[in-house]
C-alpha cells in the first residue's frame, strides 16, 4: 500500500517537473513576441552562450573537480576555428560547426594529457597560464588571426530550396539559435551526468584514491571530462563568433575565465540548473546595475561576497553540496555508533 503511494508520488513529481519544463520553454520561445527590446534580447543571447560555457565548465570543475582558470582558451579555440575557416576558406557558419567542436575538444585532449597529472591549485595555475598564452598568441599571430584587430565574419545564412534567410545583425534569430543550442547542451549534460561516466566523475572528485580502488581509471576519466568540457566551449565559441560577426582576443581574456568560474560557483557547482541560473544572473545583474555607472562593479562585488557568506553552496546547490561545508565531527559519529551498537544488540 505504502509502496504504491510512493510510486504515485514519484510520478506526480515527474509530471510537475515536465510541466514546469514545458512551461519554461513556452515562455522562452514566446518571449520575443511580447518583448521586442533589441538590447534586452541581446543580453539574453549572451546569457545563453555563457550558460552553455558554464555547463561545459561544470563537467570539468563541477563533476570532476578540475579547477580550470583558463577556460576562455577553449572558448576562443571554437570561435577562431570558425572565424579562420570563414575568412580564409569561405566556409559557412553551419559547415564549420564540427570543426569548431573537434578543434576545441582536441586542444583539451592534448593540453589535458600534458597537465592532468597536476592536482588542485597547481592545475588551476597551469590552466590560468594556458589561458593567457592563448590570448597572447591570438594577439600576435597577425597573419592567421588578424591580431588585435580581430577578424570580421559573414553572417550565418540558411538556404532552403531557392530561398535564403540571412541572420543579419538583429538579435532575434540569434536568440532562437542560442536557445536551441542551450537545449541541446542541457540534454547532453543530463545524459552524461546520469551515465556511469557522470557517477565516476563525482567519485573522482569525492575521493580519487577510493575511486581508483573501485577500478575506475581515474587518469582516463579525468581526461575525458576535460575533453568534453573543452568541446562544449568550442561549441559555444562557434555560436559566439556567429552572433558577434567579429572575433578579437579581448573577448577571451582572463576576466572571462574568472567570470565563468564565478557563474558556476554562484549557481551551484555540479548542478545543471545551477549553471544556467548562475550564467543568467551574472550576465543580467551587471546590466541592471548600469545606471550606477562605474560604481556598479562595487555593488556587483558586494553581491558576490554576500552570496558566498550566506549561501556558499550557490543559488541552486542542493543539500549534496552543503554537506561539504558542514563536516560531521568524529564525536558525533561515535555517538551515532553507540546508537548503532544498541541496535545491533537486539
Amino acid at each position, binding site marked *: 500500500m505504502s509502496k504504491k503511494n510512493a510510486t504515485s508520488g514519484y510520478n506526480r513529481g515527474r509530471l510537475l517537473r515536465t510541466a514546469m519544463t514545458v512551461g519554461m520553454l513556452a515562455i522562452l520561445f514566446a518571449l520575443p513576441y511580447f518583448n521586442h527590446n533589441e538590447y534586452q534580447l541581446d543580453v539574453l543571447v549572451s546569457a545563453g552562450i555563457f550558460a552553455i560555457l558554464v555547463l561545459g565548465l561544470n563537467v570539468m570543475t563541477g563533476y570532476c573537480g578540475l579547477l580550470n582558470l583558463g577556460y576562455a582558451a577553449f572558448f576562443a579555440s571554437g570561435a577562431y576555428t570558425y572565424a579562420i575557416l570563414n575568412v580564409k576558406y569561405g566556409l559557412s557558419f553551419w559547415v564549420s560547426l564540427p570543426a569548431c567542436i573537434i578543434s576545441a575538444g582536441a586542444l583539451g585532449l592534448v593540453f589535458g594529457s600534458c597537465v592532468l597529472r597536476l592536482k588542485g591549485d597547481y592545475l588551476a595555475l597551469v590552466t590560468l597560464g594556458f589561458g593567457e598564452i592563448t590570448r597572447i598568441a591570438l594577439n600576435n599571430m597577425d597573419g592567421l588571426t588578424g591580431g588585435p584587430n580581430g577578424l570580421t565574419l559573414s553572417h550565418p545564412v540558411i538556404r532552403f530550396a531557392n530561398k535564403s534567410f540571412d541572420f543579419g545583425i538583429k538579435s532575434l534569430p540569434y536568440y532562437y539559435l542560442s536557445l536551441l543550442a542551450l537545449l541541446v547542451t542541457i540534454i547532453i549534460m543530463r545524459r552524461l551526468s546520469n551515465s*556511469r561516466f557522470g*557517477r*565516476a566523475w*563525482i*567519485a573522482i572528485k*569525492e*575521493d580519487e*584514491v*577510493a*575511486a*581508483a*580502488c*573501485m*577500478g*575506475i*581509471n*581515474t587518469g582516463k576519466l579525468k581526461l575525458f571530462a576535460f575533453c568534453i568540457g573543452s568541446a562544449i566551449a568550442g561549441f559555444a565559441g562557434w555560436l559566439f563568433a556567429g552572433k558577434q560577426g567579429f572575433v578579437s582576443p579581448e573577448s577571451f581574456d582572463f576576466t572571462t575565465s574568472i567570470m565563468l568560474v564565478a557563474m558556476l560557483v554562484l549557481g551551484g557547482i555540479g548542478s545543471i540548473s545551477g549553471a544556467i541560473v548562475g550564467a543568467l544572473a551574472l550576465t543580467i545583474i551587471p546590466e541592471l546595475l548600469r545606471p550606477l555607472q562605474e560604481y556598479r562593479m562595487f555593488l556587483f562585488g558586494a553581491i558576490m561576497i554576500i552570496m558566498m557568506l550566506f549561501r556558499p553552496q550557490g543559488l541552486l546547490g542542493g*543539500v*549534496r*553540496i552543503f*554537506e*561539504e561545508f558542514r563536516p*560531521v565531527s*568524529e564525536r558525533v*559519529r*561515535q555517538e*551515532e*555508533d*553507540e*546508537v*548503532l*551498537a544498541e*541496535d*545491533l*544488540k537486539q
Partner: protein
Amino acid sequence: MHLKVNNLHISYGKIEMLKGITLEVSQGTITALVGANGAGKSTTLMAISGILPFKEGSMDIDGRQITRIKTDEIVAWGIVQVPEGRRVFRRLTVLENLQMGAFLRRHDRTVKDDIERVFSLLPILSKREKQEAGTLSGGEQQMLAIGRALLAKPKILLLDEPSLGLAPLVAEKIFDVLLKIQAEGVGILLVEQNARWALEAAAWAYVIETGKIVLEGEGRKLLMNTQVRKAYLGE
C-alpha cells in the same frame, strides 16, 4: 586465486618505505599483516592495488607474473582494496556507492542480485539505501566501504584498518562480517590495529617492521610469541 608478492620495494623520494616485502594470500583464508604505525602496512596494500608504483619486485597471480600494475586491471583480476579511513563517496547515496563498486561490471545483470546479497549481509545498509553516505555513522560507513568492495566481486580483499575509530561493539560486528566473507571463499589480507583479533582469525600472519617482514607464521602461534605479545598486545 593465489596472490604472491615478491620482494616489493617502494620509496618516497629518498626514504625507502618498503625494503623487500614478500608475502602470500590465498582465496578463502585470512592473512594478517601486523606492525607499528609507519611500518609500511598501508603502503604494502597501496602497492598491491597499483596506486603506488613500485620500483622493484613483482606480483604473481595464479602463477602469472606482473611487474607493472594498473589499478583498474588489478580490480578486474579480483583484488580489491578497502582503504583506510573508510573513504566512502560522501555525496553519493548508499546505493550509488554500492553501484560504484560494480563500476567495472558494465553489462553484468547479476549486479542487482549482488546488491541484495550485500544488503542481507549488512542489513543496516538497506535501511540507509537512499541516504547520502556522508550522513552515515563511522561504523555504517565502514560497512558501506566493505559492501562497496564486495560489489567488485573480489577474490582477494585487502582491508586496511577496518576497526579504526569504531566503538568496540561495532568493530566486533565488522569482524563477524569479515568471517562470513571469508566463509564465502574470499581471501582477505587484513591490516589491523587490533592485533589480537587479527592473529586469532588469521591462518597465516606477517609481522612488518620498518618496511621489512621480520616474522611470519600461523596466526595463533604468533599470538604465543613473546616478542609479538610484547610489541603488539601490550603485555
